[in-house]
């Protein structure tokens, strides 16, 4: 089963971490897409889509890596969830970054 796992820099301050598991011939069986932000020189995972715990879901993370909000994509197959994750990160990464920074601010 081909698996690819890599990070992709969008610019020096914004990264996406991608893992995709594919069964033959072309069935997505699992994935992780995680947007990471570099803030004050430190890299933080900000939002993560994956299939851990058996179902696709989105985790919003805080500066300590704790879950600040989980959204279950109940009933979605893995490929549909991956497609949603891609669209959501593309449309909303700036908002995720801004919200993360707002959560950091005391």
């Amino acid at each position: 089963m081909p698996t690819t796992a890599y990070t992709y820099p969008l610019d020096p301050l914004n990264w996406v971490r991608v893992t995709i598991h594919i069964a033959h011939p072309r069935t997505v069986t699992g994935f992780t897409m995680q947007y990471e932000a570099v803030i004050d020189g430190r890299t933080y995972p900000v939002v993560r889509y994956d299939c851990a715990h058996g179902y696709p879901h989105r985790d919003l993370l805080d500066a300590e890596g704790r879950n600040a909000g989980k959204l279950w994509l109940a009933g979605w197959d893995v490929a549909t969830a991956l497609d949603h994750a891609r669209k959501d990160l593309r449309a909303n990464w700036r908002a995720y970054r801004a919200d993360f920074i707002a959560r950091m601010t005391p």
Partner: protein
Amino acid sequence: MNPTIVERHPPQDDGYADRNLALLERLIDLQLADPDRYASIPEGATVVIIPSGDTEFFRHNLNLAIRAMLAGGEVVLLPEEGLEDPDAWFVVSHPADQPGRVRLAVTLDDTLLRGEGPGQLDSLLRLIFAASGRERLAG
């Protein structure tokens, strides 16, 4: 206004992040269509697509690749025109394994910022690989 908070935001939004997201989407589409072809990307590597046709974007992404190379780990360079051709890909070793070569990589970074363009891709890649160690990913 708290100046610390201001510093946490990117100093300017030049649009390259969105353009890189579009390139990443293309890469993922290609992976899904032909997963075996992309299984040779080393696990945990940093992947940078080197765009064609736009000198500033080319320079931006080559600079990202060099930063990643200096930070550590393996960096896979995928020329945009060769996304589907593993023979066009390169994996660049971490120069920390070759400390004598880091200075040259930093010098190249400065040079790139001043203005090389897509036409010099081959010669630039040769210089970078000479600086950091070069290994074809496939072929």
